[in-house]
């Protein structure tokens, strides 16, 4: 269940990834944004306390769809293709300031 509704191209191979600790299924060729929003309702929290965000322009212009991975990497949701094994975090950040 998610925000985006698939209307076509649904016979692509599935891709498994983790979102907020839960394994979900997306389809090969999905963007990270589509992978998240077909499995949920938001991508991230606004830094300034004004609630959830789900991206806006889908064309790499508005920069509103950056998400974190568990590993502390940043991905722009609308322009990054989903890959099996991705571990996405949509709540808070995974930024660690201590050098590993």
């Amino acid at each position: 269940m998610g925000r985006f509704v698939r209307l076509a191209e649904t016979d692509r191979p599935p891709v498994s990834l983790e979102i907020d600790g839960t394994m979900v299924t997306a389809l090969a060729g999905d963007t990270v944004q589509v992978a998240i929003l077909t499995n949920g309702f938001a991508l991230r929290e606004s830094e300034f306390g004004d609630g959830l965000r789900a991206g806006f322009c889908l064309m790499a212009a508005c920069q509103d769809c950056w998400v974190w991975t568990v590993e502390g990497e940043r991905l722009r949701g609308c322009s990054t293709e989903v890959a099996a094994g991705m571990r996405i975090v949509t709540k808070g950040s995974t930024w660690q300031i201590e050098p590993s």
Partner: protein
Amino acid sequence: MADRTVLIVGAGPAGTRAAERVAAAGLRPVVVDEAAANGGQIYRRQPAGFRRPAQTLYGFESGKAVAVHGAFAALGDRIDYRPLTLVWHLWESEAHLLTGTTASRQQYDALILATGATDRIMPLPGWTLPGVFSLGAAQIALKAQGCAIGSRVVLLGTGPLLPLVAYQYARAGATVAAVLDTSTLGAAIRALPALAARPGMLAKGLYYTAWLLKAGIPFHRGITPTAIEGTDGVAAIRYRTADGIERQVACDAIGLGYGLRSETQLADLARCDFAFDAVARQWLPATDADGRTSTPGVYLAGDGARILGADAAEIAGKLAACAALQDLGIAVPDAEMAAYRAALAPMDRFRVGLDTAYPWPAHFAAGLPDTAVVCRCECITAGDIRDVAREKGAPEVNRAKAFSRLGMGRCQGRMCGAAGAEVLADALGVRLEEVGRLRGQGPVKPLPLATGIAP
């Protein structure tokens, strides 16, 4: 001459035709494009493994899309194509490129900017809620990913894209709860003489609108949106009808847009002169008829110069390429350039017609509540802008930015710049052109701090 480098930024219709024309002159242009595949946004390709035919993806425009894609493919090795690459800055006749986290530089003798456009946005309360996307985004979700942005979609705003996206959504099986158009039928009729410059375009618009009416999709003109309701996502839109009646439509997604605005950051970083365009109500890089800017060796083509649409972009791409070649000392037939100029003339008339028919609702800026977010990156409200205008005396947008952080976020004012300037001008009681324009600053898009310089 073959050693002269023509750098083309963007691989949409303008960039494709520019590359084709430069290659035809025997040069091997460098084509840099942010996307994984050519086509730009209008003729955006679906990812590998998707199977819908061009007719499904591009409708009436499928012939043109296929032609542009084919032209690009036919260029093959005759161009140096760099997909997934961002031009993040320009400096002393070099483009600074970024691919992943690797930075490199590309010298150029001529630079053709075919950077396209994004939706022009007028905010309203609630527009940052999950489920509100730009109108262009709604189209891309369907075209490039086979998705609708929600299960009950309202399309809001004005412009040719509005009925088109509604039509495409409905045809694809999405539920379109309503099409809410801020423009009026009267305006459309007033614009008819100018719109008649491109009868084909006019006919398509009428077709989509008629189809939507026949399909029973609520289509309301002359509305004024009031607010988007919801807590963790869109639940409804409130608006006033042309007769002043308050209405509400339940929905879980909204596609929002009022025409397009040119992407001009690179022209700014190339230090091109800008001039206020009264039709677009946007500061645009000044060009001659062929796309030459005030900076020698820098040319503009397509919607990044002014919003003329994809057909015009193809012509402008060829024309800018001719201008660049000519300036590099390569012979170009006068008749060829004259033909392109002649073909562009009705497009310019049409542009004025479009703005008459689908006016940017500048006056909504004055009506935005103080609490409405204008800059979604930095969460800066209309009230914040009014405060710096009135209390801190910001007379122009860069000063308002310095004081309020308007336009200081990740998108560098792409989404909020147009509306923010309107709010500021209204608060100051001056004309829009008097508040100036946000100065471009590198990087054009966010630059990873992990970036390393290519060896």
